[in-house]
């Protein structure tokens, strides 16, 4: 069947229109939709990033200080003991006593307390944390006791001493008269988080 020129033209126009619609439906419309969506998401993201940037600017000084602070804070992290370090500590205390010319009798106890947010009980001067209790019965001269106590205070761990009992048996003014010092020192164990 031979089509007339007009018919051929009509068919061609139909094919081209179909192609145009196809390109519009398959490519142009989805692309426009995607671009609009992307535009919206990018706008939201930019607003979010802008906020983050402002926060970061505000925190910049703190962030710079944190690195320096972390180094310093590492030294303070030894304020408590780790569970299981008791033998190490006993040896250190023995060495300290020997260096201070103190005759020392030491008893150690561990008190386990279930993990809970840190709470200071001001009245009893305790914390609700697990701790080691070191009971000292020391004998020596007053100056040596003081030297020993100073060494304890200079240690990285905080030895919490609530009571000190000094006793001298002899009623004598002799400087070298032995003095007995009894006290309990508590060292806290921090939870390992």
């Amino acid at each position, binding site marked *: 069947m031979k089509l007339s020129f007009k018919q051929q*033209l009509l068919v061609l*126009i139909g094919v081209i229109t179909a192609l*145009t619609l196809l390109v519009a439906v398959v490519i142009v419309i989805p692309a426009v939709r995607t671009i609009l969506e992307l535009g919206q998401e*990018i706008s939201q993201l930019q607003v979010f990033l802008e906020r983050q940037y402002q926060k970061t600017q505000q925190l910049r000084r703190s962030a710079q200080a944190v690195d320096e602070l972390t180094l310093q804070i590492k030294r303070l992290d030894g304020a408590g003991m780790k569970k299981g370090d008791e033998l190490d500590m006993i040896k250190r205390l023995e060495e300290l006593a020997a260096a201070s010319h103190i005759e020392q009798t030491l008893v150690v106890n561990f008190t386990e307390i279930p993990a809970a947010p840190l709470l200071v009980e*001001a009245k*009893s001067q305790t914390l609700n944390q697990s701790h080691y209790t070191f009971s000292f019965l020391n004998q020596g001269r007053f100056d040596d006791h003081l030297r020993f106590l100073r060494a304890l205070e200079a240690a990285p761990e905080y030895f919490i001493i609530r*009571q000190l009992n000094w006793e001298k048996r002899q*009623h004598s003014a002799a400087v070298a008269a032995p003095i007995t010092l009894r006290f309990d020192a508590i060292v806290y164990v921090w939870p390992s988080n």
Partner: protein
Amino acid sequence: MYWQFLKTSIESLLGIICLSGIMLLGAEWVLQGYFNDLSASLTITNKIQAAKNLQIKQVNRVVHNISALQQIYTPWTPRLSELIAAIPPGVILNELSANSGDGSYRLSGVAATRDDLLTLQNTLEALNFIDSVPIPLAQLTAREDISFSLTATKELP
């Protein structure tokens, strides 16, 4: 002639739409890349912030622990040094008990004279960590070799 014009117009429209399609696809590709870059930088920012937050949390934890310890910690040696320096020569201490809970110091010993005992009371009361050292009346009756037992206290806030 009219049909020929219509055909050319539709061909031009097709050309324009095809060109627009190509441009839109290119734009979409560029925008997608930009979006991916933004998302990636956001992820990195979040990671850095999370790391900093963790560091800050650790610092806060240690500071919190130290602050709690400081509240219950008593540096004894400076006080003891001051206390012992305040003992006059005529007084011999036999017992000394110091309690940080109630801020009290119990001293017992022998004073050579009543004046030595009163000097002890005055020097102890002059210390900044002691407010009062009452002497029991019974211990003031003797004039020499007085066995004393005193409790020095600090008025707690």
